[in-house]
């Protein structure tokens, strides 16, 4: 599903965010990307959803070489991905329904189809009763669940989560991880960038450890 071949990425001349990284992540895997701050976790995810381009190397996602991809095709790639951020990135002036419906509107789905899918997605994360609420009326954990619903409503091939529980307490973290497990059980490949060791201990999966942009460990429990 995801393959990286000798990928290098630098933001400044003398410091490499990623250094000669080689990885292979099969379809249906659940992978933690760990490491201290500045290890290159977020950079790796940004390369996968084409927010950045590598300076060297190749990246394949679902058989497509995204390093050579034309800018006009990037939106199409992103429609097969679900992305979850630490700061949720919800539209505060829109209801939960409108937030979760957004990716489906972008794909040009019909209104009745959107209504049905959005309701199901919000029901899955336990927020269907607050469908007409606004994000700021919810707690942090609820907002992150809405963000996950938005990511999963398009049935993505790959779910990318960048520090999804960074702002949340432990109990909420467990709820979020349950949602990721559920998505993975349904066939979605899941990558979670985190430095939360407790979360990894409670949900042991394959761990790819980065340090100073290099791969230092790749282990499966």
């Amino acid at each position, binding site marked *: 599903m995801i393959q990286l071949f000798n990928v290098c990425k630098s933001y400044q001349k003398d410091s490499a965010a990623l250094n000669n990284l080689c990885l292979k992540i099969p379809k249906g895997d659940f992978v933690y990307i760990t490491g201290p701050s500045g290890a290159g976790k977020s950079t790796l995810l940004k390369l996968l959803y*084409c927010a950045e381009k590598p300076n060297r190397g190749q990246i394949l996602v679902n058989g497509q070489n995204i390093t050579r991809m034309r800018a006009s095709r990037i939106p199409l790639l992103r429609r097969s991905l679900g992305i979850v951020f630490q700061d949720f990135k919800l539209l505060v002036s829109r209801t939960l329904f409108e937030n979760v419906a957004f990716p489906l509107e972008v794909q040009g789905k019909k209104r009745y189809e959107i209504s049905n899918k959005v309701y199901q997605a919000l029901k899955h994360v336990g927020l269907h009763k607050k469908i007409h609420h606004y994000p700021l009326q919810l707690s942090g954990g609820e907002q992150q669940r809405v963000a996950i619903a938005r990511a999963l409503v398009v049935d993505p091939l790959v779910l990318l989560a960048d520090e999804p529980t960074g702002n949340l307490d432990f109990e909420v973290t467990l709820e979020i991880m349950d949602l990721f497990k559920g998505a993975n059980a349904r066939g979605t490949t899941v990558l979670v960038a985190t430095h939360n060791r407790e979360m990894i201990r409670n949900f042991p999966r394959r761990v790819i450890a980065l340090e100073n942009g290099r791969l230092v460990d790749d282990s499966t429990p």
Partner: protein
Amino acid sequence: MFDKILYFFRRVLRNIRQSPVLCTAAIGTVALSLTIVAFFGIVVLNVQKLASHWSDEIQVVAYFEREPEGSRLAEWRAMIERMPEVAGVEFIDRDEAFKRFRQRLAGDADLLEGFGPEILPASLEISLKENHRDRQGVEAVVGRLRQNPDFSDFSYGQDWLERFEAFLGLLRLAGVTLGGFLLFAALFIVSNTIKLTLYARREELEIMALVGGTPLFIKTPFLLEGAVHGAVGGVFALCGAYALFQVFLRKGLGAFLLFSGGDQIRFLSFQQMALLVMVGMCLGLFGSVLSLRKFVRI
């Protein structure tokens, strides 16, 4: 296709409902800029109409040394009428000239007591075609007629014509320069106002790109919104210009036009009003185009 258009317009209405202050700022900017443009446009158009009315008066009068005989007169008339600049020729004999002179003197007509038509020469009043009513046209006709020794003198308002042409040239230059400057300034201001509204929505634009929106999908509602702001601003500009027209122009410029022999002052025609609204729409649209370039990047 129709569903997509309807979707975009729904998004435009939602955006407008959610940001009323920013929308008001954009509409207000367009309205104010176009009100000024419309105001000066009304002044320039009405003064140009007056100038055009004055140009109707441009003609050449060729005075005879001696009143001509019938057949020679017919020859001259035919020759002059064949000139490309000439629209028509009228022969004014001495009696007719004297009658007109008496009428012009009105209350002082008794000054002509003891005089007869013999004091005035016969003449040919030569009216010019519309596109030749300028110094070039007049001088071309006069130049040919001067070669004929039967004409003693010519009258064509030489000094006035030069000043009139200079005035027209200056009016056109001022109109184009001022209009161009005002429109450019309006575009700059509108673009920056729209940039502010987009800056307030930058997160929305970012999220649209992250969930797979193409640049066209992301930009289209904002472009439409810009066009709507511009069109609404244009309508408000018409109202503002009409208010200024009633309060300031009707009395001041209107009186000057009537005094100068022109028609009544007029507001913009229906086509000109439609053009103003279209210009507003284009201002809003181009303002959005310029602003979106900075914000929408995949």
